[in-house]
């Protein structure tokens, strides 16, 4: 059993740069590579893809990344933990094994964690007295049950550790929590028990700091002028110790920086009550963490306290909730804002004239460049140009598309200086509703399986 391991976090979200993991593997020492490919709406997209093609439904980015890194990962013995399985971990497993065979790599052990996907069991669970009411507003599940697109429980770090213990070098999970991608290796290597709440909480804090990749190494940092070499920004490496203490760092010679301030910034990201950050394995107290700089690009975090988790899993359901479309045009000055306001009124007016009306709640108007992101805080009255963004949402798809056809005509039938319609007509796309709920842990059984190339 080891007392120290290095875990790199190479992917902060679905769509992050492939350079993160590639450079973590190639440019410094690494025991583990953790990768997050899932966001709240990702599962619904993957269910749709799987509906069209039973072999799809996982993060293909992960396989593309391995196409560039698998030989080095295999040679160096780096273990990989990714929630790339989406709603088809088995499909992802097959794709990775195929890739390994194609590259002539024999004996690569690839494991999957299954059991988080509860979509097909929702009727049975609901009939069995598991309410799964909306956690935010208390609405009953019956309101959306016939429109469900996906349903997954947030699995903890012990299933990741179990898959590693079964011999997997590559662990493919579905909906495990982001911090579990870091906690799993620590549990496996350090032999932590489910009652080691302080240590589990420390791994949760470590995972939270690393889970958005470069957002703890200088990305999205307030004092951005202090950040050197964004081009070659290093992704985070967590040096974990068996007592739960860890150091946040990055590979030597990479860009960006790790300081008390970059780490504290990320501690605050998507934070609720910092006294009680609830996960499947423990409740972590973020106000107990001691954060100190101990060297260049080295920040130590210690003293984290944790408590027992609840007996429920958070489950994330998504459902079809109507349609939306957004279109934009650029309006040049002089009088850019005044003309853009007129343009918006023309669109709503022409639609109403044709019997297509939207309520205020269904409409969105923005004049980007005049003070949109900082509405009421930083605004300007005479910008040289503005981007007019108009959007609608409705349960009626035809109505949303009717809106889409009435934006571009402004170029020739509105005030002068309207341009930038290269994107063409905006089209109706699905609105995916998000439904967070709780489910008794006894109702979710995870299982792991390992196969070899």
């Amino acid at each position, binding site marked *: 059993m080891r007392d120290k391991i290095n875990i790199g976090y190479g992917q902060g979200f679905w769509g992050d740069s492939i350079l993160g993991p590639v450079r973590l593997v190639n440019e410094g020492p690494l025991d583990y590579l953790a990768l997050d490919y899932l966001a709240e709406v990702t599962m619904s997209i993957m269910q749709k893809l799987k509906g069209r093609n039973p072999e799809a439904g996982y993060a293909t980015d992960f396989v593309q990344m391995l196409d560039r890194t698998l030989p080095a990962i295999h040679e160096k013995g780096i273990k990989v933990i990714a929630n790339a399985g989406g709603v088809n971990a088995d499909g992802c497993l097959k794709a990775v094994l195929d890739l390994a065979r194609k590259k002539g790599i024999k004996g690569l052990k690839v494991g999957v964690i299954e059991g988080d996907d509860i979509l097909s069991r929702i009727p049975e669970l609901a009939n069995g007295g598991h309410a799964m009411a909306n956690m935010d507003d208390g609405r009953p599940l019956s309101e959306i049950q016939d429109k469900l697109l996906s349903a997954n429980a947030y699995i903890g770090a012990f299933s990741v550790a179990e898959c590693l213990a079964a011999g997997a070098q590559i662990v493919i999970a579905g909906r495990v929590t982001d911090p579990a991608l870091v906690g799993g290796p620590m549990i496996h290597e350090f032999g932590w028990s489910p009652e080691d709440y302080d240590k589990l909480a420390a791994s949760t804090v470590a995972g939270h700091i690393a889970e958005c990749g470069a957002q703890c190494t200088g990305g999205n940092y307030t004092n951005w002028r202090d950040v050197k070499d964004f081009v070659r920004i290093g992704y985070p490496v967590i040096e974990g110790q068996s007592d739960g203490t860890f150091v946040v760092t990055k590979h030597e010679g990479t860009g960006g920086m790790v300081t008390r301030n970059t780490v504290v910034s990320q501690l605050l990201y998507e934070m609720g009550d910092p006294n009680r950050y609830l996960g499947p394995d423990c409740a972590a107290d973020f106000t107990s963490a001691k954060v100190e700089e101990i060297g260049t690009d080295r920040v130590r975090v210690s003293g984290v306290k944790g408590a027992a988790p609840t007996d429920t899993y958070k489950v994330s359901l998504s459902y079809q909730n109507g349609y939306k479309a957004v279109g934009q045009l650029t309006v040049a000055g002089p009088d850019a804002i005044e003309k853009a306001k007129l343009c918006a009124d023309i669109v709503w007016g022409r639609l109403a004239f044709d019997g297509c009306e939207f309520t205020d709640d269904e409409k969105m108007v923005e004049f980007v460049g005049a003070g949109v*992101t900082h509405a009421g805080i930083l605004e300007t009255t005479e910008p040289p140009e503005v981007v007019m963004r108009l959007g609608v949402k409705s349960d009626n798809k035809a109505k949303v598309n009717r809106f889409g056809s009435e934006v571009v005509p402004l170029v020739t039938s509105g005030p002068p200086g309207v341009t930038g319609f290269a994107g063409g007509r905006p089209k109706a796309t699905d609105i995916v509703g998000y439904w967070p709920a709780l489910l008794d842990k006894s109702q979710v059984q995870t299982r792991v399986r390992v196969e070899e190339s």
Partner: protein
Amino acid sequence: MAKVKLSEFAMARSGDKGDGSNVGIFVTNEADYEFLKRELTVERVRKHFEKICFGEITRFEAPNILALNFLLRDSLGGGGSESLKTDAQGKTHGLGLLEMEVDR
């Protein structure tokens, strides 16, 4: 006393929480933290974001990292895939808070 922007001595990060956002703000010394705790009341933050946040605001303290965390409900025009807004995830709300002017 002079008017200064929070950005002159504080840093921030924000992101989405359901249909709302969280705005974390922190400083680098105890004196600044005491000032921040005193000045940055929920009422003050509500007024500052009156054209952005239309729901309840809750404030949490994290003295170990000299930080305050504000939860802003109904600040994203729906949140997630429902929102039509440019900043559907509240990623800019932190910089918005740092624009606040205070007397020091």
